[in-house]
């Protein structure tokens, strides 16, 4: 048996939005693993997107040295930092049967497993955003998620994570020890409050993925040109949105300032009048709402997360 075959290698994929701290969390995890004498990698996947766009980060953990620098396509563990990605991104793609999926959601794990058809996987849920809001006073779910990861996988101890987090924050927050304490508390609460269920089936469900078969070099247009106009509309950047502008036609004075400033041409006009928002392309930057005259207030920004909660409670 080769050394490689004997080695246990754990591969982790983080799903988040750019700006939610998944890359940092993956770095902390790798650092903590190193502290425990393990071998670890952490790397993000970069695209041209900005804050709010779906992104991925990765970890490899092992008790033996490893040397590959390839991407991770069949992870053992998936961590979903933003629960809204559950409906827009194929987060379980390549996830091994009986692998862990750890989701930031207040839903109990049984319900999450049912709702998102996760029967072949072990599902863990923790209200990481809720914990973060209470302890850190802002929605930084990565810290409680790390606590949850430590608990359900046992790959790293809570003590190491806490030691590491404290050390990392020490320099910056020397004068504000309460910040460090809040982070340690967030970790601990993530660790304590996570709930999980076992996989219900050993068989993977074949999922339909709307994937375009990429053309080979012989078929592609010469020079990388895009031979048709307006193709950027096919890129549904609406999934990047954290906040949603809500339009109230009753209050609108039709000054068209929102239409003028929208960088994504997502303000819909009909006969020269604003009639609504193109949510397929609105990235939720909020410029429209900023420009809307204070007296009118026809555009208000609402957190997507809260919208979901409102829907769920109905």
């Amino acid at each position, binding site marked *: 048996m080769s050394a490689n075959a004997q080695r246990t290698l754990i591969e982790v994929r983080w799903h988040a939005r750019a700006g939610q701290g998944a890359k940092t969390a993956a770095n902390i995890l790798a650092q903590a693993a190193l502290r425990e004498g393990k071998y670890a990698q952490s790397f993000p996947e970069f*695209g*041209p997107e900005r804050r709010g766009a779906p992104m991925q980060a990765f970890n490899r953990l092992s008790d033996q040295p490893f040397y590959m620098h390839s991407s991770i396509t069949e992870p053992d563990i998936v961590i979903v930092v933003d629960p809204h990605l559950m409906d827009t991104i194929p987060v379980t793609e390549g996830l091994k049967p009986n692998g862990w999926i750890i989701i930031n959601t207040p839903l109990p794990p049984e319900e999450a497993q049912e709702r998102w058809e996760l029967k072949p996987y072990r599902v863990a849920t923790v209200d990481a955003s809720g914990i973060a809001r209470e302890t850190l006073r802002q929605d930084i779910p990565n810290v409680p998620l790390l606590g949850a990861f430590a608990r359900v996988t046992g790959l790293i101890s809570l003590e190491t994570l806490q030691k590491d987090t404290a050390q990392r924050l020490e320099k910056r927050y020397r004068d504000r020890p309460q910040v460090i304490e809040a982070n340690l508390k967030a970790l601990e609460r993530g660790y304590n409050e996570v709930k999980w269920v076992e996989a219900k089936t050993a068989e993977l469900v074949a999922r339909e993925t709307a994937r375009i078969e*990429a*053309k*080979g*070099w012989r078929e*592609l*247009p*010469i*020079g*990388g*040109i*895009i*031979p*048709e*106009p307006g*193709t950027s509309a096919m890129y549904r950047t609406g999934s990047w949105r954290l906040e949603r502008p809500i339009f109230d036609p009753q209050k609108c004075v039709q000054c068209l300032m929102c239409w003028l400033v929208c960088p994504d041409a997502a303000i819909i006009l009909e006969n020269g009048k604003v009639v609504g928002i193109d949510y397929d392309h609105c990235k939720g930057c909020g410029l429209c709402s900023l420009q809307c005259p204070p007296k009118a207030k026809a555009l208000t920004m609402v957190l997507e997360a809260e919208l979901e909660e409102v829907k769920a409670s109905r």
Partner: protein
Amino acid sequence: MVEVVKTLPRVTEEQKRLVALSGNEAQAEAMRQINPDVVAAYPITPQTEIVMQFAQFVADGKVDTEYIPVESEHSAMSACIGAAAAGARAMTATSSQGLALMWELLYIASGLRLPIVMAVVARSLSANLNIHCDHSDVMGARDSGWIQIFAEDPQEAYDSLIQAVVIAERARLPVMVITDGFIISHAVHPVTVYPDEAVREFIGEYEPEVSLLKVETPVTMGPVDLPDYYMEHKRQQTEAMKQAKQIILQVGEEFANFFGTKVYGFMELESMDDAEVAVISLGSSCGTVREVVRELRAQGLKVGAVKLRVFRPFPRDELVRVLAGVQAIGVLDRADSFSTMGGPLFTEVKSALYDVLVTQRHTTATQFIPLGGPKVVNYIYGLGGRDLTNEHVEEVFRELLDIAAGKPVEETWRYLGVRE
């Protein structure tokens, strides 16, 4: 797909004019006759007289060209890229540091598959400040996806620049035509010039397949190209280079038919049929080498020479067929790569010959190949305008003959004409 060779009417001898022109003047004359839509160039040092003369043609109303004097070579190539993307026939000229400053744009021109044609006068790169002939500038651009054609003298520079327009547009690749700084650029030689109408007929009207100004078929050029597509586009580029080999040969043949010239190809051979040793070089030194070959042949020595005209795409198979039967090859490089294993032409030639050296797959029907294939030795010469004399070349041939007779090669690269 490669087009079928056109049969065009021949230009008569009476229609041609024999004039005395420097390399720069010959290329400026070609550009006047080509009458490109756009020429963008940096007009100050290290610019050549090519652009100075062309600007005069513009000022005198002898061309219809939109001439854009820009603030740097970086901008010159940028403007050519913009013009070519808009569907214009765009040309420029540069040299030395100017080419170095264009570096990142060279890749954009080739990556966007724009048929820009550039006259490059090859000169050394600083430091130290030198300005004289050297191939360091063009060798720095050898992997930028441009077709590179070396001209030995002003006639070849004139002919090649006209051919380059057709090659570029058929291959959808940019082309640089390279002349040796000062040695050719400023030296006056007899040049046969063809009538304007004939040149314009030969190059024809430029009808780009895609362009930004074809509003009825809008396209996006140069979009973001991530790991899932970028590599396919590079693969296309290398395929275009492969196809360009056929195009270069075809255009050379069409040119010869039309203007009654020699047939331009990848290389020109001097006494290679039964040569035991050979020298391969680029540019003006090929003339000097030819002289020496003829002298030594008169003494009964079996020496030969290969003038490589096309460096990119590199004509591997054709070159191997010529060199495989030779016992010792001297590769002259007018640039050092500082790899400590020789200059750029040397590493290409040796790499091309590897299969011959190792497996002897490329045997020729008439010649016996000694076990192990030819010995290849590199001579780095002429840096920063250092003269290459007949004596230098003879010294090279004598050493190659010794090597062919069994003298051990030891280190395979050396400097020629340097003070120890």
